[in-house]
């Protein structure tokens, strides 16, 4: 990785480099929990999605949910990672009321997925490669409710036992921008794969961020872990704050305590949660209730064959096949839903080779612009992919001009309807009939003899004539035809 891709922080003693590693907890998309048949549906009355296993009733045993394993393997493949055909579930022992078993079933020494790599795009066409250390499966805990009683806390076990993938990065991230871009990219990959819905507000994707600082080239510094971040913006803010906090301590001659910290978005600062001395001794050992997780290479190969096209591949294809710019292609593939929308438009175009690039411009500029303005999501766009494709067809085939198309788009946005029918019924068709245009051109030249005389010396004033013609045709005249006609009539 070149140093040009990241930012150094200035301290009073010179430049500091930030070193960041992340543990992302991604809730696996599955109908039932990792080791029980209980539903994983979000919400619902407290303790309404709890099986005997989730509540750790005496004598209950975990049974692995194979779909969760498939999801983890798919994710590993999406991260270009090594898939371990044999992995082991361990117990991570600690007491807390949201942990009914008194241990979390996780994977410690032998995770299901090993090392991998993610390409992360930064502004200005830069990109970095962030290493993946491992991915393992584990159970989520329940939730404590402190607001139900003045003297007691209640426990909701709906989440207890839901499958999580913990995706651990290598300490390859160097600043807040990279960190945010990494989470964004990872989230995008997970959503493309359909292995995690990536909904950070609902807690489906949370990050623990390890931050340390050092002088460039120096050995790694002592790190602090900022726990349980569920917003990409806050991750950036927390890193900026934490790095400066550490630099200040070090420059004052102090030392960093290895500890767990929490980010307070209201105050914009991190604060200590527990020190290394207070850290739990989790007493990991292989869970004797579960056999090692073993599957064959053909199981992996089958999943690999069924993987959807991922954002990087899609971007490459858009650039190569449709001639999109790298930037436009990245914008389109960043969100799975946007890419799906764009590709549906493409599929419905009469001539995708001719109009594919125009479709990209329309999706990015007109549609995204309008959606952003109204804070709406692509999945809830008033203009369907079918309608947009029809508008683009109308432009491509020369039935309407680009300008009229914008009006048409607005009508479809506001009122709906079939664009082609609207063009007919509202007389929006572009006039390409030369005789019809000729009359207008002649009238305008006749009415403006001075300007007609001047245009020979000042060819740029031709635009004024074009404008006049377009205006009096209600924008329906074909601009190119008007241009050529004017040139011949004016003798330029």
């Amino acid at each position, binding site marked *: 990785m070149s140093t040009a891709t990241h930012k150094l922080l200035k301290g009073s003693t010179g430049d500091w480099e930030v070193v960041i590693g992340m543990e992302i907890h991604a809730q696996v998309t599955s109908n039932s929990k990792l080791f029980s048949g209980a539903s994983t549906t979000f919400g619902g009355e407290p303790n309404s999605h709890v099986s005997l296993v989730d509540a750790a009733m005496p004598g209950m045993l975990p049974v692995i949910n194979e779909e969760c394993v498939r999801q983890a393997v798919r994710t590993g493949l999406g991260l270009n990672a090594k898939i371990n055909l044999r992995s082991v579930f361990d117990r991570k022992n600690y007491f807390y009321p949201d942990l009914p078993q008194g241990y979390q079933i996780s994977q410690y020494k032998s995770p299901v997925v090993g090392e991998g790599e993610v390409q992360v795009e930064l502004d200005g066409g830069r990109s970095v490669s962030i290493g993946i250390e491992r991915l393992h499966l584990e159970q989520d805990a329940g939730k404590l409710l402190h607001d139900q009683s003045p003297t007691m806390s209640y426990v909701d076990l709906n989440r207890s036992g839901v499958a999580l993938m913990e995706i651990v990065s290598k300490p390859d991230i160097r600043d807040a921008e990279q960190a945010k871009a990494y989470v964004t990219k990872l989230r995008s990959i997970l959503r493309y794969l359909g292995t995690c819905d990536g909904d950070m507000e609902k807690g489906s994707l949370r990050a623990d961020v390890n931050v340390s600082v050092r002088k460039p080239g120096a050995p790694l510094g002592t790190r602090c872990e900022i726990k349980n971040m569920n917003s990409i913006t806050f991750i950036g803010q927390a890193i900026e704050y934490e790095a400066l906090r550490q630099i200040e301590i070090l420059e004052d001659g102090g030392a960093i305590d290895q500890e767990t910290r929490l980010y307070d978005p209201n105050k914009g600062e991190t604060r200590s949660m527990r020190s290394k001395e207070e850290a739990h001794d989790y007493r990991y050992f292989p869970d*004797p*209730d579960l056999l090692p997780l073993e599957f064959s290479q053909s199981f992996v190969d089958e999943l690999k064959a069924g993987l959807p096209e991922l954002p990087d591949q899609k971007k490459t294809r858009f650039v190569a096949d449709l001639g999109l710019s790298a930037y436009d292609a990245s914008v389109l593939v960043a969100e799975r839903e946007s890419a799906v929308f764009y590709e549906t438009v493409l599929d419905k175009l009469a001539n995708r080779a001719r109009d594919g690039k125009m479709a990209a411009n329309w999706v990015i500029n007109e549609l995204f612009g309008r959606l952003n303005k109204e804070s709406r999501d692509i999945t809830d766009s008033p203009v369907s992919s079918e309608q947009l494709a029809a508008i683009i067809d109308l432009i491509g085939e020369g039935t309407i001009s680009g300008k009229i198309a914008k009006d048409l788009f607005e009508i479809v946005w506001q009122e709906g309807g079939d664009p082609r029918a609207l063009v007919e019924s509202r007389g929006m068709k572009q006039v390409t009939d030369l005789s019809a245009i000729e009359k207008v051109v002649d009238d305008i030249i006749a009415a403006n003899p001075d300007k007609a005389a001047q245009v020979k010396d000042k060819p740029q004033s031709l635009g004024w004539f074009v404008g006049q013609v377009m205006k009096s045709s209600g924008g329906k005249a074909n601009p190119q035809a008007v241009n050529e006609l004017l040139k011949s009539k004016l003798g330029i």
Partner: protein
Amino acid sequence: MTDLTSLTLAEARKGLADKTFTSLELTDAHLSAIEAARVLNAFVLETPDQARDMAKAVDEKIAKGNAGPLAGIPLGIKDLFATKGVRTTACSKILGNFVPTYESTITSQLWRDGAVMLGKLNNDEFAMGSANETSCFGPVGNPWRRDGSNTTLVPGGSSGGSASAVAALLCMGATATDTGGSIRQPAAFTATVGIKPTYGRCSRWGIVAFASSLDQAGPIARSTRDAAMLLRSMAGHDPKDTTSVDVAVPDYEAAIGRSVKGLRIGIPKEYRLDGMPAEIEKLWSEGAAWLKAAGAELVEVSLPHTKYALPAYYIVAPAEASSNLARYDGVRYGLREQGRNIIEQYENTRAEGFGAEVRRRVMIGTYVLSAGYYDAYYLRAQKVRTLIKKDFEDCFAKGVNAILTPATPSAAFGIGEKGGADPVEMYLNDIFTVTVNMAGLPGIAVPAGKDAQGLPLGLQLIGRPFDEETLFSLGEVIEQAAGRFTPARWW
């Protein structure tokens, strides 16, 4: 009709089929016997109403001719098995009056096959003990006493209630569990037959866990045939227990009476302990001679890592137990002792709810798994376990079909006689049995004789994985040669 209780299970099955008596009569006879034997403290919960309802229902089925293989047979259930709607405590205060909403796989298979539940049987708290003295319901009396003595002896443990109830004719058979000898040692102390099947043979689902990688359920009964009948209903693959194995369950009863001619029986030299009582030595030789007389071939074998089995067991079992018992925290069910905060609530609940032996093992287990000690203790114990397993594999690879050993190093002892000052004294009871759990093999204890004071002694046969049939065949040879042992009723 009181003599109905002295029938073997096989005899009762015939009587029921011939309509000589009904299941209700058989059940009532046992319920009366239980009532009269409360001094033994074998049952911690009697369920007479449920028993009669089940018996009546099964009598109707017998009348219609569609009853299962255990139709009408009254059984006792170790209190470690979850029984739906019936209090299940593992004989620990911490479970309090816990009533499961679910039925363990094993008991549901027994009810499926027509068996009748008489009640829940006493055991060591969470199956931790070798004398049934750690139960929160108090110790169990052994129906056997020394000749001319009034001292009440322990029935062994942890399945002490099961063994005592079967020996005292309170039930025709009982469920039991064995983590380090908890079926075989009490069977040996009470002249009953107990088999711990191969790990994975029976489902652990719905059985309160002690040490998951060692726990295995099995029956205690009054004959090898009875044990074979019970195991057939108890065994089988269960998708709810992924450590249970999908291997067809044979008709174990068919192995009773099968010729043992040509079978190679290993006699492991490492089981000949220094200071072993002469009568145990004599019993062992006698058992070997009976098998030889029946046509088996005796071979001396070596299981060199035997001496490390007990220390390794007392690392692995407490380690798993410390984690398995973490769920008893007073948050969701069972005992809760309030505190000023959650940590205090945990401490108060667990200090009050767990007995001394359970607390000791939880602490040992926590220690051996803790950072800095894991490698020295837990990991090494697991390596020892692998070596023990290999000892047996090597032995079986040389053509040995089964291994004959004593079941226990002594006969039953008095309540409070052992382990008071040094828990290891109690742990040594399982010296011949823990290796079998460590290796996951099947082992059967059969009564083989009496000591000089008139107390029963048992022999153990260890088999190849999933070859319980050979153990039944060999066990029955010893049973035939040694004769049947019944305690004189004193209660």
